[in-house]
């Protein structure tokens, strides 16, 4: 018979045992011991992450996250984040990993560690077909939008600084930015080519096209710094998924194009 008091004591002891672990570096076996892996995803960026008709997360990033859980042998707990929320989610220890079209940049790598790339996609400028835009200079006098904190925001901020006369609007998430584009509140927007797919699927979306490449990107799996063992394990997993054709299969399934070149670093 277990009395409530005895369960409380057991709980206290378990907490005491768990405490030193939390302060140390996180290794894959710590996640296995914890019994679950907490992964940040963004469900507003199809085809990488979205909600299906039964409100379950789906997409290329989501399926990769499930593969991570499967390889660790633990269930995955999803935490949804927006672009600006990815690094804070890691730093505040709300999640173990970020798999959320997280482009590898040197600035971000000052805050978090990136795995080798598991996918890639260029950030591009999107605008109506009728508008002639060949480069940043053609944006002068136009209203240009982007998602706050996304890679296109970083590139466009620089372009706006160097080309006076661009009205620049930052939105809190991708859908708002796409809405602004569709309702004519902005003349052009930064986005991935997923942005184009996004617009194409909407009511008046046929009229938009990709104008020029803002920056080629590679997506990595993000984690807190100071966890070399976890970083190495994630890279090892990606190496195997790349070599057995899994990444290519995911890319074909969700993006209808091959995975392409994934240069490790």
């Amino acid at each position: 018979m277990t009395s409530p008091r005895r369960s409380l004591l057991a709980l206290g002891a378990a907490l005491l045992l768990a405490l030193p672990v939390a302060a140390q570096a996180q290794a894959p076996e710590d996640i296995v011991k914890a019994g679950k892996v907490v992964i940040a995803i963004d469900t507003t960026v199809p085809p990488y992450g979205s909600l299906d008709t039964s409100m379950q997360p789906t997409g290329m990033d989501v399926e990769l996250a499930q593969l991570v859980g499967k390889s660790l042998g633990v269930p995955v707990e999803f935490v949804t984040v927006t672009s600006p929320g990815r690094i804070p989610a890691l730093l505040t220890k709300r999640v173990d990993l970020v798999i959320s079209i997280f482009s590898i940049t040197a600035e971000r790598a000052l805050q978090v560690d990136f795995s080798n790339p598991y996918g890639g996609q260029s950030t591009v400028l999107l605008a109506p077909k009728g508008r002639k835009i060949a480069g940043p200079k053609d944006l002068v006098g136009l209203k240009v939008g982007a998602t706050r904190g996304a890679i296109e925001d970083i590139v466009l901020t620089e372009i706006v600084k160097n080309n006076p006369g661009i009205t620049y609007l930052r939105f809190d998430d991708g859908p708002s930015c796409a809405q602004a584009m569709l309702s004519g509140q902005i003349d052009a927007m930064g986005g991935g080519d997923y942005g184009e797919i996004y617009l194409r699927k909407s009511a008046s979306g046929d009229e938009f096209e990709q104008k020029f490449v803002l920056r080629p990107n590679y997506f990595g799996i993000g984690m807190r710094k100071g966890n070399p063992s976890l970083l190495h394990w994630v890279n090892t997993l990606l190496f195997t998924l790349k070599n057995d054709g899994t990444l290519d299969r995911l890319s074909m399934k969700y993006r209808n194009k091959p995975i392409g070149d994934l240069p490790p670093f």
Partner: protein
Amino acid sequence: MEYQFDFGPVLARWPELVQGTLLTIWLTLAATAIGLPIAAVLAATRTYGPKPLRWLVGAYVELIRNTPFLIQLYFVFFAMPGLGIRLTANQAAILAMVVNLVAYAVEIVRAGLEAIPRGQIEAGRALGMRPIRILRHIVLGQALRIVYPSLASQFVLQLLGSSLVSAIAAEELTAVANNIMIVTFRNFEVFGVVTGIYLVLSLAFRGLLGGVHQRAFRWEG
């Protein structure tokens, strides 16, 4: 605790913080300046006007007070262009804030109007005053005095509520905070500083409006 506090990178962006703060104040003042006179007229309409007009104002009040401000904001910015009405982010923010503020202020002012004893209005009528003069000289001043504290509270709520308009790319204080956060990743420091700014703003306006109350309504009580 492992986290190292560093306010330096946040405070270094003070010009943006000042700009954001000024826009927050400007949006709130503009919305209030436009909204209050409208609210006064609509409140009088809802209290004394003909039945269909009363019903119309009531419907407007219920519609706005029972839907989220964020949706009203999206409606103005994303849906109205469909009707050919295209506003800039700041204009859309002010319009949405006016529409929202008026609905709440109508109810506040109406409470003041209804608190005026009927005897006073009848006395005015007995003296041969026209309804507009009764409203101006007898009712409105007293009503405003009664509801002034509630209106002042509503003003401060409006100031704090304006933080939502960053959703349509108006670069007020909250938007600036997010901009700084994504560059510095100093979340605690950014939101610490911005919380402080909002707190100071609210307390300053409460104090200011309280002072105005004492001066403007000294004539009685």
